[in-house]
């Protein structure tokens, strides 16, 4: 099955180049040049992943990302020329799963795309407990009692990674490697922002987290199972 990737960037040269790289790796690419029509094209194409430039004419990448999140859990990787601005954090908070700073290598692009498309192989019968939640790994569902909590695939993977080893404290670097597929040092803001987003969805009181617990100076671990 070929995966379709939507490239939203206003620079036609880079869009085309990304298309060539993706095609050489066996992906199918769709393109959109501005923010206004991004959602239109998104609905039309139904991509498996979106590469989204942060600075777009019309509607900026952050808004587009928010709109996509409203519609679907499709992985979004932002492309940005600035790694130091607040825009990266805003983009992640808007729902992007990952980001890449220009200029990047084609191998890097492909690796990130593959990492986001890769489904973690989950044991069919596996059920995990974390805090007062139950994770149905095969069914890709997180339940609090009878109520299902909607998570993006990345958030789900993050939960599963923590819940599988409740005795272990994960450093941000370890989570980056396990969940995002990074081999080398990367931006730990990714983890921070996603933990925040995850907490907003799964914690009863995000101010006093019980599901994803911070271990000061080290990282995060799963909260003790209560059910």
């Amino acid at each position: 099955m070929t995966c379709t990737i939507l490239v939203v960037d206003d620079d036609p040269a880079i869009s085309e180049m990304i298309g060539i790289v993706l095609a050489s790796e066996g992906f199918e690419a769709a393109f959109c040049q501005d923010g206004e029509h991004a959602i239109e094209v998104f609905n039309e194409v139904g991509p498996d992943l979106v590469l989204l430039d942060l600075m777009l004419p019309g509607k900026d990448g952050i808004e587009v990302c928010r709109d996509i999140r409203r519609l679907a859990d499709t992985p979004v990787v932002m492309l940005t020329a600035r790694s130091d601005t607040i825009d990266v954090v805003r983009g992640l908070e808007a729902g992007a799963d990952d980001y890449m700073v220009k200029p990047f290598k084609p191998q890097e692009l492909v690796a990130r795309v593959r990492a986001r498309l890769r489904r973690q192989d989950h044991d069919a019968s596996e059920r995990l407990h974390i805090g007062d939640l139950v994770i149905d790994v095969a069914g890709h569902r997180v339940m609090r009692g009878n109520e299902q909590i909607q998570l993006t695939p990345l958030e789900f993977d993050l939960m599963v990674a923590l819940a599988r080893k409740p005795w272990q404290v994960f450093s941000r670097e370890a989570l980056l490697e396990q969940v995002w597929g990074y081999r080398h040092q990367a931006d730990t803001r990714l983890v921070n922002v996603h933990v925040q987003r995850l907490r907003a969805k799964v914690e009863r009181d995000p101010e006093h987290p019980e599901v994803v617990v911070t271990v000061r100076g080290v990282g995060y671990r799963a909260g003790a199972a209560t059910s």
Partner: protein
Amino acid sequence: MPRPPERRAVVARLGSLARRARLAWGSSLRLRVLAVTTLVGIIALMLVSVTLSDRVRDTLYDQRVDEALADAASRTSLIQTQLDNTTAGTPAQMQTVAAEIIKANQSPGSGAVGTLLRRSPSEAAGIPIDFTVGSSVELSPELREAVQTNTVQQWQPIAVTTTSGSGPGIVVGAQVQIPDVGPYELYFVYSLVPEQATLRLIQQTLVVAGLALLGLLAAMAFYLARQVLGPVQRAAHAAERIAAGRLDERMSVAGRDELATLGRSFNEMASSLQDQFERLSGLSKVQQRFVSDVSHELRTPLTTIRMASEMIFDARGAFDPGTRRSAELLHTQVDRFESLLADLLEISRFDAGAAVLDVEHLDVRVIVRRAVDLAAPLAERMGTTLVHTEPDEACRADVDPRRVERILRNLLANAVEHADGKPIDIVVSADERAVGVSVIDHGLGMTQRQTEQVFDRFWRGDPSRARTIGGTGLGLAISSEDARLHGGLLEAWGRPGVGATFRLTLPRRAGVVITDPPGQLERAHEDVEPEPVRHGPSPAELPDLEEL
């Protein structure tokens, strides 16, 4: 001769007091104004008082003397007349009569407190009829002689003792002729005690008035100083705040006097300063913005170029040799271009003050180990080895690991490039304030001059020497900025032929001032063994910031 201890203590105390006074004198204009005004007031008042009381005394005295002389003259002539008219025949009778006449003339109210009749010693004959009425005084021989030899009145100041007390006085003498007996000396004694009392009262009044005036003067000086110095002080405060960067600070101005003018001028100056500053900072912001924008705008096409070159490079096997080499050159130069752009961007971030420290309390040894491990393949390729020494205890400090790693990467790459194949020492050391990392090579070394320039942007140690590893020429400049951002230091030392040392010092906690960096920087001679590593205390004993 040694001073006794208590004296020394007193001297020391006086010394400190004097120092404090000098300090207060030097630092307070108000105190000076007050002191000078009071001092000048005291001198002026003293001069006025002394002159005034002198004049009053002289006038009082002269007046009293004139009065006394006139009084004495009229009495003398009266007594002479009465004596001339007497009918007494014998000297004994004469004595009685004279005594009576004199007693009769000793009336109160005339101011005379005593009358003395003395026989002239030249008249050997006759009976002595010396006698005294009222207060007696000791007559000086000079006065008596003057009276005896002159027919006119003679007088002399004298101390008088009366029933009401003693005080200054004068005695006036003249000759009288007692019929049948001969010349006698008649003296009248006048007291100046009332005049002295008057003088004392005037002097007391003067002193009281002077003190009151002095107090008033001091109060006025104080008030004036405050009135004038208050605005000056406010101006000073406002200037301080402006200097501290609060450019919108202004003085409040009321009225149209000189001080209001000061305030207005000050405010005008501040406004023009603010305008100037804002214009300049606006300009520099535009400039920095431009550099940053250019760098960012370059990134999108660079990404395309990069991907394209990567594709071409991957397919180079299918090309003829010339095209293949071109593909390889394109590939490496795109890499180089990219790192240049990244460094340029980083520098522009420092220049714009946009660089932020993302600190964590970490063991610096771990970061050093990682950097050494990463640099090891490069060192091996260049035929050198990295010798790594570290303390046994953790060297924890508040650091931004990304930046520290970048500094170490730059230092190690630089050392490897200049080590000339000789081993490179990496020494971690720590004390209670800071953690130091020295990167010591034994290669070509540098001159004193070069160590000063080595952190300059795009500076090249030896333009004739080809760069083997590459690098953008911004690495050490960025490292230096990174160290500064931590509140730390990056220093270089070198001697031609001996080698070079770069020492990075990072404060344990933000805000700690590094006075004596741990770790080695300078080397006396090449054959001297490296200084043993100084071991810091364990992190458990790390003092709080307040204690440092």
